[in-house]
């Protein structure tokens, strides 16, 4: 079979290889293509190109050249396969390592590197809610520069401002942990589970914005940052060291960020100034999404894995034991919360503030028990586990 290709003045230094390659792909193996053109270097370049790409090259006949289609391109793609389907419904349970960074649904050449994404089991990382939560998260991103009315700051009594700064200092510390954990997990998730990676990435980006607005609020009046206690950092550190995806997600999102929902609602209610109210309110909406993914993911997994509950329980107990001898919540933070709720140093006001913080503890406990119940724990066990949660809230 003979086919002809006229290149006109087009040479290989201007992209002629595209036309030659396309014409060859239309031929059967070992089919011959007659190539003609007026570029003076055509013969030199066509010969070199054919050699490098595994096609045969013959000088002539007159006014042209003959190229014989070689098998290399077909051989390269002979063992290729699709990396699953494109839709979330078409994900596979255990994507092979060599699919690696290929787009889901791409035609993947056989061979190549097998990067180790160790979280490569659908039943461990996936939640059917992930694509929808990601879409929601992407749509709900806000700009710290404009989402907060930074000029709305009002002059506060010195002690109240100091309490706000202390609470912000504590929040920043917790947000840093909440950013690092999903970022670490995301780097281990097989890219086949794209929506989970995307969700974790947005979660980390959420925390980055929270760190920014809390920092900006803390520094708004020029005071130095508050204190960071060893016990608080010990509690957060025990989250960083949890390597298991499900357990890390459970401790951080379901229990930690779940408790934070109550804390941020408390700060919204007792904020002494509009900026504090706005930043805590914005953060709370994001945190609710993180909690939703954590719960959905573990619900999905609990349905597949009857041992999950036992492992979750053990994780809470292990963390409790490791923190048993530490102070837990920074005392400065505890006092600052009371002062914020009290609003003044009047004894009656302090009494009200103290009662409000006690109510906060109850609300946190109630929320944790509800979420544990959703994961299948009986009420008494949920209450017991909730009580073992760190005193540091997160």
């Amino acid at each position, binding site marked *: 079979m003979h086919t002809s290709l006229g290149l006109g003045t087009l040479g290989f*230094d201007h992209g002629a290889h595209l036309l030659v390659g396309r014409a060859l792909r239309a031929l059967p193996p070992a089919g011959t293509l007659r190539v003609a053109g007026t570029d003076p270097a055509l013969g030199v370049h066509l010969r*070199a190109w054919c*050699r*490098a790409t*595994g096609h045969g090259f013959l000088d002539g006949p007159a006014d042209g050249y003959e190229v014989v289609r070689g098998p290399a391109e077909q051989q390269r793609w002979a063992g290729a396969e699709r990396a699953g389907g494109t839709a979330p419904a078409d994900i596979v349970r255990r994507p092979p390592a060599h699919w690696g960074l290929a787009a889901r649904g791409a035609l993947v050449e056989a061979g190549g590197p097998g990067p180790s994404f160790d979280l490569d089991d659908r039943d461990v990382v996936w939640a059917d809610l992930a694509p929808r939560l990601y879409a929601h998260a992407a749509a709900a991103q806000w700009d710290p520069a404009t989402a907060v009315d930074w000029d709305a700051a009002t002059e506060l009594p010195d002690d109240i401002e100091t309490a706000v700064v202390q609470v912000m200092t504590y929040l920043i510390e917790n947000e840093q942990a909440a950013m690092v954990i999903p970022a670490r997990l995301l780097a281990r998730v097989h890219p086949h589970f794209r929506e989970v990676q995307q969700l974790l990435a947005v979660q980390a980006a959420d925390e980055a914005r929270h760190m920014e607005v809390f920092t900006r609020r803390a520094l708004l009046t020029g005071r130095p940052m508050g204190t960071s206690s060893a016990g608080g950092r010990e509690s957060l550190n025990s989250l960083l060291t949890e390597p298991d995806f499900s357990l890390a997600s459970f401790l951080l999102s379901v229990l930690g960020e779940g408790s934070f929902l109550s804390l941020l609602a408390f700060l919204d209610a007792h904020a002494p100034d509009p900026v504090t109210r706005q930043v805590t309110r914005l953060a709370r909406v994001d945190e609710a999404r993180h909690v939703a993914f954590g719960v959905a993911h573990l619900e999905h997994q609990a349905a597949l894995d009857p041992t999950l509950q036992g492992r979750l329980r053990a994780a809470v107990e292990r963390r409790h034991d490791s923190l048993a001898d530490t102070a837990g919540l920074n005392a400065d933070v505890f006092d600052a919360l009371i002062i914020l709720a009290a609003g003044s140093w009047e004894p009656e006001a302090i009494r009200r503030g103290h009662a409000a913080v006690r109510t906060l503890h109850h609300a946190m406990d109630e929320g944790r028990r509800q979420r544990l119940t959703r994961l299948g724990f009986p009420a008494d066990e949920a209450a017991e586990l909730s009580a073992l949660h760190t005193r540091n809230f997160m």
Partner: protein
Amino acid sequence: MPGPTLLMGAVAYDPKVVTIWEGFRHYLLGKGLPFDYVLYSHYERQVEDLVSGRIDAAWNSPLAWLRAQRLAAASGRTVRSAVMRDTDQDLTSVVVVRADSSYATLADLQGQAVAVGAVDSPQATLIPLSHVRSTGLRPDEDVVVHRFDIGVGLHGDHIGGERDAARALVAGEVEAACMIDGNHLLFSQEGTLPPGATRVLTQTAPYDHCNMTLVDTAPGELAEEFVELLLSMSYADAQVRPLLDLEGLKVWRPGRDSGYAALDAAVTETGFYDGEGRLTAKEYAP
């Protein structure tokens, strides 16, 4: 005492050579061939070691192949071109001028400056200058030769000399430059030679490049197995394909010695090696 091993020499012209031959070694060992390799910093010692039997096989440049033949003949040994890459067959070199120059034939370069690659480059120096000589122009007498000696001892494996020759042409420092056809294509595509800025003045006849040279002292069965295993490597094999891509081939072909006449003539004309394979080239210190 372990049994015999087929020992091959290769020249480390680039760090990727380690990756390539480590990959081949792993593959060949996996196929049951006791195989190892040693790396040389230049071809001359590799060829001497081949003919003296210190190694069994050598991945040789065309120039090294010719020296191996001459050394072997002088010492009563024989060497053969056992296998070569598809990309080692039917190469050509070109002499290139600027597109807007008036040169129409090689003879027009009388008295002009011509850039070439390293002193020991078959494709960018020895073969093209022999081609020039065949038209009656004497290099260094009728034309001024500007040599770009990068990677001397690597027999032109290092592309740097050719690229510098091309740059000198574009910069107007010389009137013509010599290079292999594939590098003219590469330099045109990567922009070293701006598209349309150069014109091919002349092209040599096709010649062959590297080959896997076996010496007759090599353990016979292992040598045959080595050749058969190389010839059986398929580009369709995902395990093998990265190695073939790195080494620049799609398929190994049976070796031949029919494509070295032009270089052999150039070696004799310049006295690069003498008839017994001794190093007699001027200004060559690998």
